[in-house]
């Protein structure tokens, strides 16, 4: 009898376990109300999502936001992929621009925000930004929350040592083109014996390639990465900088890059607005030694995020109300004043609230004006399913030459071969 009891318990336990495991994906459907006064929101860590949610609670005190900071941007996108595949999705999710294309390729997973009223507000945003979450069938799956903008952050103290001008207007005039930028770098390196720029793949290739009208796909969606003059020009420009010996060979966000920034081993870095925070945290001792000048070519963008509502969301209405309230031009302007995330809405670019922001860490540079100016020259171009892969392979080829392992004469062909391999074309 004792045996029987024990075995019964064991059976019960295993049965429960197996049932729990099998029903894991469907058990979630019963939880959470759909009364319109609460919604579930997945965001990234490190961007003060809690603050944004708290702000919203001030306007709408009776709305409950179930906020989850899933992880960094990439981890959030991975979690979203799993959630979409499994069926239990949040009501609102933040997606970083780099991760957006693979979701835009599968718009059936998301609520077409035109049905919620996105058609009426889409004119508020920069055309090349709102084109990114717009799918082939015309549906809009995301609303931009911010953009990166591009500028060159440089060390005034190191420029002075090298005999270069330090005033941000004059520095901007040193490099109307990328060729002039590389020439300035040569002068700096000749005078100081130190590297001018952090690396060529991020600070040159990724910038130049985004300044054209066409990137890896033509407007009809055909792959043109191996024929596009803009891509080739960007690639050659990066190799030119490598050949000139002006780069510190420090790939962005590596330990060496952080250490070099602290030690002043490079004087210049191409910086989107969100990178300013990284410089501030990374090298606090360099406060006041930095300034910000216009990027060669005048325009550029790196980064930016989008809010989307998955198709299976239980509270799409509450989620949309949040988007409409917080991502209006005024909402984005307020957020810039607080958190320095650059608005994607050009109507506020002349607002004194934006133009008056000056950053003491960067010698009082008017970051609102500098960064929004860099956004106005950009053109929309088609981003396809393999854009990220193609960009990574070109960047890797440049890195390989920069690290002294690759032959610059063969780098382009090698990159194209690798891309064909990677995208299975």
């Amino acid at each position, binding site marked *: 009898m004792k045996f029987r009891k024990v075995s019964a318990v*064991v059976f019960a336990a295993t049965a429960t376990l*197996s049932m729990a495991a099998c029903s894991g994906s469907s058990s979630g459907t019963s939880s959470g109300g759909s009364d319109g006064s609460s919604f579930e929101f997945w965001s990234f860590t490190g961007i003060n999502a809690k603050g944004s949610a708290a702000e919203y609670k001030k306007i709408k005190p009776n709305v409950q936001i179930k906020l989850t900071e899933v992880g960094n941007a990439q981890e959030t996108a991975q979690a979203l992929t799993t959630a979409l595949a499994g069926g239990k999705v949040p009501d609102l999710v933040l997606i970083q621009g780099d991760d957006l294309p693979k979701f835009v390729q599968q718009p059936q997973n998301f609520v077409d925000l035109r049905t919620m009223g996105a058609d009426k507000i889409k004119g508020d945003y920069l055309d090349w930004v709102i084109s990114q979450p717009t799918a082939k069938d015309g549906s809009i799956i995301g609303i931009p929350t911010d953009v990166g903008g591009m500028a060159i952050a440089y060390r005034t103290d190191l420029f002075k040592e090298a005999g270069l001008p330090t005033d941000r207007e004059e520095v901007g005039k040193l490099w109307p083109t990328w060729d002039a930028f590389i020439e300035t770098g040569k002068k700096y390196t000749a005078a100081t014996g130190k590297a001018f720029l952090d690396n060529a793949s991020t600070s040159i290739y990724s910038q130049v390639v985004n300044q054209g009208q066409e990137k890896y796909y033509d407007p009809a969606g055909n792959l043109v990465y191996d024929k596009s003059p803009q891509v080739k020009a960007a690639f050659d420009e990066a190799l030119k900088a490598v050949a000139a010996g002006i780069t510190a060979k420090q790939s962005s966000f590596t330990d060496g890059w952080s250490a070099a920034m602290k030690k002043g081993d490079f004087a210049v870095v191409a910086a989107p607005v969100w990178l300013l925070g990284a410089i501030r945290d990374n090298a606090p001792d360099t406060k006041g030694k930095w300034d910000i000048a216009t990027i060669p070519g005048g325009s550029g963008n790196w980064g930016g995020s989008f809010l989307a509502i998955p198709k299976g969301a239980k509270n799409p209405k509450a989620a949309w109300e949040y988007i409409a309230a917080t991502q209006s031009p005024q909402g984005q302007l307020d957020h810039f004043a607080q958190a320095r995330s650059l608005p994607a809405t050009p109507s506020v670019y002349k607002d004194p609230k934006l133009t008056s922001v000056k950053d003491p860490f960067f010698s009082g540079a008017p970051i609102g004006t500098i960064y929004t100016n860099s956004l106005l020259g950009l053109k929309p171009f088609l981003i396809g399913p393999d854009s990220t892969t193609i960009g990574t392979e070109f960047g890797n080829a440049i890195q390989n030459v920069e690290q002294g392992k690759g032959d610059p004469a063969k780098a382009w062909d090698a990159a194209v071969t690798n891309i064909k391999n990677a995208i299975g074309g």
Partner: protein
Amino acid sequence: MTTSIRPAKKALAPSAPVKTTRAGLTEIVAPYAYIAPFFVLFAIFGLIPLLFTFYVALFDWNPIGEHVFVGLDNFTRLLQDGRFWNAARNTVSIWVLSTVPQLLVALVLAHLLNHVRLRFAVLFRMSMLVPYITSVAATAIVFAQMFDRDYGLLNWLLGLVGIGPIDFIQSVAGSHALIAVMITWRWFGYTALLYLASLQAVPRTIYEAAAVDGAGNVRQFLHISIPALRPVIVFTIVTSTIYGLQTFTEPLLIARSAPSTCGPIRQCQTLTLFLFEQGFTQFKFGYAAAIGVALFVMVVAFAALNYFLSTRTRPERA
């Protein structure tokens, strides 16, 4: 299964003869119930995912889009994919570079720690486990910093004796060596303890007799310790092969500029990292599953080879 429950039945039969059918049923069912938790959990978390992987490998499988049946296309593509063979080469190279020194160091250490006159033996034995209980991620980050080209401790030391900075992480040989050092550092203590445990089962009298006969430390090591350890050595080779083929965290964390390829030219991308790249950064689940199947076949083949060799080289019993 049936052979394993029969002895139990036999053993129970004389003391408690089976009378009612209910009791008989219990006795038949009970052993299965006892082992059920493992097998049920194994089926859920091991077997079913494994079989599902074989299934997914036959598709062009987008996790949030369409699943198109492509038959064996993923496998034919894989066999022609230079990146796959590169990853396979890297994996084997890192495995050899990490396993051989690790087992040798562990053997010698175990022999030394088994010495009778060693003081603080427990302290030494325990401290060897510290690398093993340290988080792999922490190990990888610290080692990557030590081996850094411009600001690393190692290159600073090399610089003192006039050797120019070596870019370990960006070169094929350097990155493999770095990963091998990390794996060796992590596992040598654990392996040494396995050997030590086995050595302690060897009667002291054998060593004493050898010493009386004039055998020195080295001869004792070669002629007593190693033959005694043969089964454990085979076991550690098999386990380190299986772990070695699955090396993942170290390569993911050392090349921060291109983590999922372990550097711009995939110089240290292992098979599992290639699987991760295809599955979770490119979202080609079908192709990633095919890599998983290939890896499975390789592990089985290596394990079979090890088994074959170990049964062949079993020492003759005296």
